[in-house]
């Protein structure tokens, strides 16, 4: 019994196991440096510096722009400090009775609840697809993959139409429930379950008399925590970034996430340039937490990206 499973195990888990871990380590292969010389070194690294500048300069512009008032934005050099940073932030946080704080709170709420509930739901499904055998498994998994292939925005209008007929538009649920459903997370969960969780461990738990539910919660779940964090991180970002769905579903400004709120201000800039510093400062404040999160959680998005590219 145990021999067959230990023989079969490596074939399925081995190619997946590195997927979750390669990102954490420095380059494993040590290649002997080729000739190439100084010219190649400068060429390659010079191009990388240029590419990084292209990626980073727009963000740097946003940082500088946040320190300027409306007239300085149109007048001065882009990469100089203005003196209005705190004035801009103060206006941002007090405008319209402090509605921006409310929008930030909504974004955090939608993204956090969406990430935790949606991530957990996907983790359970991915675990089941990896560890259990049942009839119709491939067909069911096929439907999940079809869900991955349908662009999000193509389902937004149908979602709105259904929600409108049920009279639940303009509620938090109209944004939250779709956030719980992420077929790609199920796919990731299955990959992680195969990579992080050896069948033998569950087999041992079964021999010890643990039922399948208990095995999942006391053994599977703790071992899948890194996978769960990765899935939840990706889902958090997806919900935080979502624009079309809340734009369509919500009319009450008190329910807006930051993306829709900032868009509302942006659409008034043409008439009233005084909204411009609000848009810039609002953008700055909604980017900062995500950038910090991404820098700190590098390990997790790296493993998510490498797992996602395993076909």
């Amino acid at each position, binding site marked *: 019994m145990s021999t067959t499973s230990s023989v079969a195990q490596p074939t399925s888990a081995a190619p997946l196991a590195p997927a979750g871990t390669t990102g954490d380590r420095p380059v494993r292969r040590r290649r002997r440096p080729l000739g190439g010389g100084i010219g190649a070194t400068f060429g390659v690294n010079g191009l990388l510096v240029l590419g990084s500048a292209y*990626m980073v300069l727009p963000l740097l512009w946003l940082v500088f722009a946040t320190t300027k008032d409306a007239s300085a934005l149109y007048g001065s050099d882009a990469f100089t400090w203005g003196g209005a940073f705190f004035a801009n932030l103060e206006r941002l946080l007090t405008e319209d009775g402090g509605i921006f704080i409310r929008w930030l709170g909504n974004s955090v709420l939608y993204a956090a609840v969406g990430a935790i509930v949606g991530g957990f739901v996907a983790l359970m499904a991915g675990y089941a697809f990896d560890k259990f055998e049942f009839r119709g498994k491939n067909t069911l998994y096929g439907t999940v993959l079809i869900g991955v292939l349908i662009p999000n925005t193509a389902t937004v*209008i149908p979602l709105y139409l259904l929600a409108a007929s049920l009279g639940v538009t303009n509620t938090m649920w109209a944004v939250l429930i779709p956030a719980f459903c992420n077929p790609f997370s199920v796919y990731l969960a299955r990959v992680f379950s195969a990579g992080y969780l050896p069948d033998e461990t569950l087999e041992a738990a079964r021999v010890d008399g643990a039922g*399948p539910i208990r095995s999942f919660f006391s053994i599977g779940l703790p071992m899948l925590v890194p996978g769960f964090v990765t899935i939840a991180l990706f889902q958090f970002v997806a919900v935080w970034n979502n624009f079309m769905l809340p734009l369509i579903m919500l009319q009450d400004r008190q329910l807006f996430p930051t993306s829709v709120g900032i868009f509302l201000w942006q659409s008034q800039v043409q008439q009233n340039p005084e909204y411009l510093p609000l848009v810039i400062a609002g953008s700055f404040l909604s980017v900062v937490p995500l950038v910090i999160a991404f820098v700190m959680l590098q390990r997790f998005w790296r493993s998510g990206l490498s797992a996602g590219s395993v076909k």
Partner: protein
Amino acid sequence: MSVRTSGPRRSATKRRPIQGTGGRTATIFLVPFFTVFLVAMIAPVIYAVGLSLFAEQRSGLGFGGAETVFVGLGNYADVLANDTFIAGFGRLALYCVLYVPTLLGVALGFALLLDAVVAKAKRAFQLLLFLPHAVPGVIAALIWAYLYTPGVSPIVSALATGGIQIDFLSVHMVLPSMVNIAVWEWAGYNVIILFTALQSVPREVLEAARVDGAGEIRTAFSIKTPLIAPALGVALLFTVIGSLQLFTEPKILSTATTAVTSTWVPNMWAYDAAFNRNNLPQAAAASIILALLAGLLSWVVTRFTSKGTSR
């Protein structure tokens, strides 16, 4: 996708399933996900298909309200015969043709540079290249909208001092400008996927190429690139699906330039049908057309890439 995934799937079924855990336990794990999947994806699409088969017709002079009549595929015919919808599709097609090769080219280029022997500080470069992905789509589009706006933009003024006058937001330039925004957002994400794949290219193969006298550049394009074709296929698939979603960038740019109309791409057309023209059945039909097209395109891409990579 289903073609592509049949490989790993087969090895998974060969592995001995956990005994005594059949369909009943699996059901407990699968029910939460499939409930939200049903509510947030399948039901809306079915409802939209149903809705798209009817139309509201006003009797006589418009008195006495509207009545709903079955029109079969009439709405689809109307949508497909609509000039603005077709023009939007043309723009979307042009966008895809420009965006997909540019993005994959840029991402592959940076991944190969990072993988070059002489590249320094690989982790730092990866992080910098990835950073824009932490920026929500709305904010990315806003930042670039201002980087395109004369008077505010350092780019426009720098080009002007160099004697180059470009209006990035003009009718002809706005589409390439949008491609640039999307490349900025997504290049780093794909760089990481491709770089991870490059890391797993067997060392012996590269060694053999070197012994045979292939230089770094030759190796990069004739050895490494073909070997990461599966990862390129995945990146291609998700890029194509992503590009069909085009909504956020044009919606934001429409607040900065009149060159982007309210029906600029099919998604905006459907939004406009639902909220400005109050023609829900046509909005539903347009969404279904888009979803079908996306499904078809993904199928073609998976077919094409899995044929290309099978040995």
